[in-house]
């Protein structure tokens, strides 16, 4: 059965309510997790959450150290920790359960009195209210755009001459169209990779649910694999962030 997203039509601007709620929820969850981890900080006797957060910070320090000299990359540690924690929590949110509401037809599909947007007029409507925030393409593309715009702006600010020379002198002006394509393809693939992995995982969960009782071992396997994929994709996103930033700001050694 095709589950629709509850979309509000605000004068042409279509707002996905479930994505809005889930983004707010995952932001609140990551914030609460981080704040709980830094309560009662202690050097000799760290609690479990403090240990966990220290491990995450060390891990991201290792990622930054792999791609650039850590002294240049130290300002981006907070960005890296935020990205990896937020994307990991977001990827895990859509796995445990789903919340679906039903409506008889298109006219009765309302939320707090506001009409939800439905194309055509199908008979039996079902809206899903709980999903991973990263299963929404607009959310992952927003994250990718933040990161890519940051890398361009930092490249222009810190490394202006080499950053602009990188387009024409790398190693020859003949390669310029390839660099133009790279400007477009970097944010696209960064965002769509994360979106595709999580969205395809959720669609597969829906398919396995339709199989009934036989699907129970299949569901266990698929949920385990989805946890693995969620962790790997959060790590890949953070590492690619650091790689793109290092490509923009660390150019002196090449020339």
């Amino acid at each position, binding site marked *: 059965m095709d589950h629709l997203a509850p979309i509000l039509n605000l004068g042409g601007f279509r707002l996905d309510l479930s994505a809005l709620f889930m983004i707010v929820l995952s932001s609140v969850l990551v914030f609460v997790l981080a704040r709980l981890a830094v309560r009662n900080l202690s050097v000799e006797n760290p609690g479990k959450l403090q240990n966990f957060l220290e491990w995450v910070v060390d891990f991201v320090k290792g990622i930054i150290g792999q791609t650039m000299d850590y002294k240049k990359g130290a300002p981006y540690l907070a960005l890296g920790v935020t990205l990896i924690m937020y994307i990991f929590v977001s990827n895990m949110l859509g796995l445990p359960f789903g919340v679906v509401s039903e409506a008889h037809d298109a006219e009765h599909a309302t939320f707090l009195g506001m009409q939800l947007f439905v194309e055509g007029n199908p008979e039996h409507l079902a809206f899903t209210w709980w999903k991973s925030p990263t299963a929404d393409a607009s959310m992952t593309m927003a994250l990718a755009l933040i990161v890519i715009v940051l890398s361009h702006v930092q490249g222009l600010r810190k490394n202006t001459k080499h950053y602009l020379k990188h387009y024409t002198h790398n190693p020859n002006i003949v390669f310029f169209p390839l660099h133009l394509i790279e400007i477009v393809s970097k944010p696209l*693939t960064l965002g769509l990779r994360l979106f595709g*992995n999580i969205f*395809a995982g959720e*669609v597969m969960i829906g398919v396995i649910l339709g199989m009934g009782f036989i699907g129970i071992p299949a569901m266990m396997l698929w949920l385990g694999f989805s946890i693995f994929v969620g962790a790997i994709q959060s*790590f*890949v996103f953070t590492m690619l962030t650091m790689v793109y930033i290092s490509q923009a700001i660390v150019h002196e050694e090449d020339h």
Partner: protein
Amino acid sequence: MEYAYLAAGIVFGLGAFGAGIGNGLIFSKTVEGISRQPELRGALTATAFIGVGLVEAMPIISLVLAFMWAR
């Protein structure tokens, strides 16, 4: 004419083909590296899975497109 299903099948079939070959290349080099230096097994396996995450980006995008067309 109902070409949407055919398009979805072709797109995802070719994507799966590419993903299979790409992952196979990654893991063949990983196994060769482990056989040369067994003590680096953990680091090599971790790097292999990161490579899988990168290689599978385009086939996963083709999967999303196939889902969009085969509704």
